[in-house]
């Protein structure tokens, strides 16, 4: 006998843990990428400012990697302890991205320390840069594989079948997910998953670079230094471009995937709170390019399988509105730091200088955080109460939403006793770990200033 939903406490624990890990992993990706970019600029220009930036960000990346890897272990054991039966799904079907993730993990964990410990050890500095580049690619490849698994949670890959066992194994394992052919495991990286993956990787870069830019603007205002300005002039246009690509290109394709593969999630996140099939001209225009298409409303499905109704706040409020504002702010700051306010026709930038620059650090960090949280909640809560979701067309009503339930008999550990005090302890750890990483970065930067 299975229940669809897991206890709220368990879902909160996982949600907070994944968010915290997402923050640490994003910061690692962003900082190591920037270190490599800065070292490249140094190698090309021999400008010591770039060297300083590269070394500083390499160490910061190492801090995020260390705490992030430890936190990853926490999340991994959280998976084994809370959602024990997910392990069987890994082994039976989803294993390949986890297996490839090991290569990525090794690349990061072995090469990042080597990168940090080998400054000036090579006669040809490009070799050192190459180590950093491979380490950064390892970080991106790591994200690629984990996001492939997350994509599968929301959109069941082609060829993957859910098998409900005729009897459970030891009253524990009820479901398996099996590909119909041996090479089917490669479908974990199907085209739909790739869109989800690149959406996630760009989101990680946007989150981390927004935080870095915000802190750099704050620091530059308190004590202006040429290297900080150089960092801003490199990162801001890149950040603006990333937000534009994320919103206008990949975000659009991601939206089309939801339209195609999960109509219930679509109705929940778009706030289509009606019953039955109805034309929505605006959504139709965005999804299909005309105004005539109809969509099944949220109340067309039974309450037991509907995701929460608060999702429009996270999707439209946090992710879409937050993302648009973030892009606008980033564009404004780019124009400002490239001194375009001195150019005829751009004088209006001067008029909003205070808002842009004084409010910038807070706005960038806050908006990027809100957009990321909004996106993550949309993707992960929007598929509740199932994993490996697939919509099966029906001739008599809305598409049938199928998947493995996350509750008892599905993924949830049947022997677990999650008491409030235990949960409180885990919450504390989940929040303290990112705080620890940030504190270590603060200590490191402070020491650098003293030195």
């Amino acid at each position, binding site marked *: 006998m299975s229940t669809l939903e897991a206890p709220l406490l368990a879902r909160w624990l996982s949600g907070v843990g994944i968010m915290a890990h997402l923050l640490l992993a994003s910061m690692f990706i962003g900082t190591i990428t920037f270190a490599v970019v800065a070292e490249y600029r140094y190698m090309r220009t021999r400008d010591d400012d770039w060297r300083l930036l590269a070394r500083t960000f390499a160490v910061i990346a190492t801090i995020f*990697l*260390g*705490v992030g*890897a*430890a*936190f*990853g*272990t*926490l999340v*991994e*054991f959280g998976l*084994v*302890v809370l959602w*024990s*039966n997910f*392990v*069987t799904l*890994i*082994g*039976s079907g989803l*294993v*390949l991205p*986890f*297996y490839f*993730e*090991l*290569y990525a*993990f*090794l690349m990061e*964990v*072995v*090469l990042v*320390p*080597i990168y940090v*410990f080998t*400054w*000036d*050890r090579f006669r040809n500095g490009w070799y050192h840069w190459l180590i950093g580049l491979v380490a950064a690619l390892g970080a991106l490849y790591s994200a690629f594989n984990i996001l492939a698994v997350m994509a599968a949670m929301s959109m069941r890959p082609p060829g993957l079948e859910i098998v409900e066992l005729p*009897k*459970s*194994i*030891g*009253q*524990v394992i009820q479901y*398996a997910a*099996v*590909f119909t052919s*041996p*090479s089917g*495991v490669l479908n974990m990286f199907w085209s739909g998953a790739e869109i989800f993956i690149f959406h996630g990787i760009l989101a990680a870069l946007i989150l981390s670079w927004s935080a870095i830019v915000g802190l750099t603007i704050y620091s530059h205002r308190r004590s202006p230094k040429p290297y900080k300005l150089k960092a801003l002039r490199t990162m801001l246009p890149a950040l603006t471009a990333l937000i534009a690509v994320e919103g206008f290109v990949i975000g659009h394709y991601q939206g089309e995937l939801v339209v195609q593969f999960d109509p219930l999630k679509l109705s929940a996140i778009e706030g289509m709170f009606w019953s039955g099939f109805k034309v929505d001209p605006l959504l139709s225009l965005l999804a299909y390019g005309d105004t005539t298409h109809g969509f099944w409303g949220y109340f067309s499905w039974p309450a037991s399988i509907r995701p929460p109704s608060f999702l429009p706040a996270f999707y439209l409020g946090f992710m879409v509105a937050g993302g648009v504002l973030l892009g606008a702010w980033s564009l404004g700051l780019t124009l400002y730091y490239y001194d375009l306010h001195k150019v005829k026709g751009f004088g209006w930038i001067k008029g909003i200088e205070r808002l842009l620059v004084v409010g910038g650090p807070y706005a960038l960090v806050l908006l990027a955080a809100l957009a990321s949280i909004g996106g993550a909640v949309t993707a992960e809560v929007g598929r509740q109460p199932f994993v490996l979701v697939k919509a099966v067309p029906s001739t008599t009503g809305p598409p049938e939403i199928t998947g493995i339930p996350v509750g008892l008999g599905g993924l949830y*550990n*049947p*022997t677990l006793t999650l008491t409030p005090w235990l949960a409180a*302890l885990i919450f504390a*750890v989940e929040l*303290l*770990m990112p705080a*620890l990483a940030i504190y*270590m970065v603060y*200590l490191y930067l402070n020491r650098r200033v003293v030195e």
Partner: protein
Amino acid sequence: MNAVELATILLAWVFGVHIPLVYTVLGVLWTLPALEYASRGDGRYMVAVKGIARYLIAVYAVGGVFGTIITVFLAGMLPVFTNLAGVLLWPVWATAIAFGVAIALPLIGYWYRTLGHMSPGRHAALGFLTAGFTTVIPLMFRLVFAVVNYPAGVEVVNDPSSLVGFDLVVRNYWALFSNPTYPPLILSTLLGAVAFSNALITFVYGYSSSNLEVVSMSRKVALTFGAAAALSGVWYLFELYYYAPTMAWSILGGMPSTIPASLATVFMPTYSLVAPFIAAVILGLVSAVALLTSSRIKSRALNILGLLTSIATVIDVEEVNLLSHLPYAIIPPVSAAEELASQYGVNFALTVAKVLSASTMATTLNALAVFVSADPAVLYFSMAFFALFTVLVLVGIYMALSWRRGS
């Protein structure tokens, strides 16, 4: 290549890298506060303490990563086993991770950062506290090893509604600690970790003829703890003989008298590991002789020999411990087999034994094994990649050890 061989190769590799690294983390964590306290801030010792602490910081994360790799391999290659182990032993995993990540990691960072900024006594106390919390990790993980040796506290309940015909149940988690193979296993682990770490310190500093006071101290610690670890190992083997006969049979080469003749085929091991076991004993002895003679003979070759034989001993012992379980993932106890046979019939007992075998665990619901058998190039590429990164781990450790601030 079949699924069991694939699982065996991958797990043997990752254990071979993980265990020496975490042994040094554990050993160094207990050694450094002792050294710090004994030296009372003596500058000659403190140089070594700081150098070894830097190694600790570099290796803690790498060792942890290999721990994660073990989990992925277990989930990928033995999903049913890992799933059931997660369900049955969740407090064990939860405790290990709570201490390993939540408490030990920040404490190690704080201890490292306050090195030289606190009185030696207070800092050593902080170090011992850190070592104590970190030790909870092997205390828990070795408990899992003990359970797969001899599942004390785990009940087999006949259940016709289960696909495999039975359920595994843990009614009292404290009963897990009653496992007779657990005390000698954890004792030899802790003693061995201290001995191994101090042997490495002796040989590394002996090679470079530096920190000679520390070398002298470490040598004595390595020999004392090494001897104690060897005795614990004998005790462990003794308990295996009675409670995990498949392992004893594999290691000693003959069927233990504890196995009834009628059950010989049930408990027969897959591999005879007599030669690797003898090799481990010889390697350990060579390492001990190198430790003893290095106090009188100043020879780089001798230090290299000692270093390599120490590492090889730890890897060899760990591999023997891992592989001697086969064909089982969890070795069914003789007493349980007899009881199940008398209570539910021989066929039921055989079914339980079959389900607990590595073969069943590895071939059931295993997409990776299916994929690799269809495309073996994936495995060959993996082995080359993993070998390369094993070398790079060593390079990284060397770089960390030889790193100087500001260089």
